[in-house]
């Protein structure tokens, strides 16, 4: 009953190969995965569909990952947003977590790690999950 509707995931990364790889990895789990190559795309898509989980690259040209995080948090408050970055710094991490990111995933990562994290994000009830990034 609960799984009648496929979970909607949007991957936002300026690297097409990264977007594609993540999508491939998640499609195996029977999620509905969309990709966006920038903040504008992501916002446009999120306006049309309701995504359960966003995977957002922190460092992107145009709208930065952090700004996008803020916008998504206000537009889709029930969605969970996992930040991805190739250069995790304390500053980024802290800011992201304080802004409301669900978790933080440093590149590169194994498909299993990705799936586990996404499953966790989807499985938890709403916003109440404890912050794992401590």
């Amino acid at each position, binding site marked *: 009953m609960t799984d009648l509707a496929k979970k909607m995931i949007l991957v936002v990364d300026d690297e097409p190969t990264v977007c594609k790889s*993540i999508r491939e990895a998640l499609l195996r789990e029977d999620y509905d995965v969309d990709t966006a190559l920038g903040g504008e795309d992501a916002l446009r898509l999120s306006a049309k569909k309701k995504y359960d989980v966003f995977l957002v690259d922190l460092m992107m040209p145009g709208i930065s990952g952090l700004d996008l995080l803020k916008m998504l948090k206000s537009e889709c408050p029930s969605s969970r947003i996992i930040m991805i970055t*190739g250069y995790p710094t*304390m500053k980024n991490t802290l800011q992201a977590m304080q802004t409301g990111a669900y978790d933080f995933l440093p*590149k*590169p990562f*194994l498909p299993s790690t*990705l799936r586990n994290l996404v499953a966790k994000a989807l499985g938890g009830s709403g916003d109440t999950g404890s912050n794992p990034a401590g």
Partner: protein
Amino acid sequence: MPMRGIFRRFLDQSLRRKLILSFLAVITMGGVITLIIGTRIEHQTIISLAEAKVRHDLASAWMVYREKLNSIRELVLLSADREFIAEALRTGRPNGVAARLDGIRKEYGLDTLTLADARGRVVVRSRHVEVSGDDQSGDPFIARALNGQVTAGTQIVSPGELIKDGTDLAERAYFEFVPTPMAAERPENHEENGMMLKAAAPVTDEGGALLGVLYGGLLFNRNYDLVDRVKEIVFKGEKHKGHDIGTATLFQNDLRIATNVLDDQGNRAVGTRVSREVNEAVLRRGGLYVGRAFVVTAWYITAYEPIRDIDDRIIGMLYVGMLERPYIELRNRVMATFAGLAGVCALFLLGLLSFVARRITQPLAIMAVAADKIAGGDLTHRLEFGGKDEIGQLAHAFNSMTADLHDAREDLTQWGRTLERRVEERTRQLRETQDHLIRSEKLASLGKMAAGVAHEINNPLTAILINAHLLLERCGDHPPSRESLTLIAEETTRCAQIVSGLLNFARQTPAREALADINDIIERTIQLLEKQAAVRNIQIEKNLDRSLPWVAIDKNKIQQVFSNLAINACEAMPEGGTLWVTSGLSRDGTSLEIIFVDTGVGIPKENIPKLFDPFFTTKNFGTGLGLAVSYGIIRQRGGAIDVRSEVGRGATFTVRIPLESGADKSEQSEDMS
């Protein structure tokens, strides 16, 4: 020049000698001047006193002289009034008169007493009755008496007249000149005239008619009554060493005719003459002479005054004189007393001066010695005389100056002693700082580059890693593909690890400092390694200073550093060995020092500078980032890591962590931006 030489020599003397010499000169000069002036004044006083006295004595002598003259005048005058004389003249019968006149003459000690008639012819010569009838009216005395005047005075009498009263009288008057050294030249060599006190009085009858003249005289020549009487009255016979102090003389012209001045033989010095000087002053110029004069054999203080006849012509001199010697001796005595007193005073002054000079110069001499000592380097020398005068103040100032000098030198010495050490220390620190700086900059730029590269590489790695795994999931059990895919996945993972290490190194995430015991961290590090080390036959020895203070550090990071160093040490000892870990305070007490000493293969000299460079490794495994990251962590905390090593002799890594958390803010903030 010689004066200057003497002066220069004087200046070279010691201060005390100079003082004494100066005062001595002043005293001597003062004494001499005083003595000279005193002598003058003394002499003047004594002599002028003597002169005043002799002047007074001369007046007294004149009194005696006039008294004598007056007595002759009285005698003649009274006798002229006697009846028998008038009778004889009136009657023209002089018989019997001669004898009575001669009686009077002898009684009163006259040399002549003669009666003449009214025309001036001699009637009776009482001394020499055989000669009479000669005309005496030409004689000024007789002439005046014939005019009724009683006349008295002094007269030069020619030998012709003298002889009329007897040859003995002429003989008494006669003098051969006795040669006298200082007398004026005279053409003649003898004196025939005589000098007489003479008085003439007219003889008259009751009616006052002139009957004749009575005249009488006293020949001075060789008559010593007057001079001796003067001596007796005026000088009262005072003697000095057997000599009469006072003398009186009658001069006929410049010739001594009656005197009590004695010659060498002790005879009366008649026949000698007066000195030229007196002659000139008294006989020629008719003045009074008072002063020193050489009289026959000795110096006298004398007074001479002219004797004049009744026509006011100068015919001789009256002299009184006092032997000068007693006055000179008196003066000498006074002077001697004076000089003696002056000498005693001078000696006393000299003593006083010597004492004062010593009081002044002795401290100076001591100071000079002290100054010498100080100049020679003995700055502990102190002067020990007090006193409130200038010398005391000087000594005090001297002492405090010396003390200051001493302190200053101590400071200098101390400073000099430490200077070299400090220079070395500073040089070493500078070199270290420079090394650290270069290394830090190298690391910073490398870090930035690494961060950029890592970020870019991470994206493709992500794609590769995910796809490799996706393929593995799909290919099932198909061995050849699976093997290749596994390899790809593993190597990609390795790449990811390298990049992660790079990022770790570049990132240097901010330290989370908390107070911790460094020994605790060391223990924990070693605990993790011990088993592994034991397997490889490596012993780990700890030597930890338990009294070390806690410091603010990021425990995890520091543990990472220790772990890196310990692992490196173990890997340097493939054959086994010992790792010593020591903790303690640095020598200057400002840092903790944790020292890792191994007995491993050591590090070649050329590798030491590169040890902390990222990616420098001598191992076949590892990223080459361990030491670089460790270094970065310690630098971030404000500390340093130093290495000393030689090939075959192991290596020593020293980690210094300042007690004060001087975390390098720039590195931290760079990361935060």
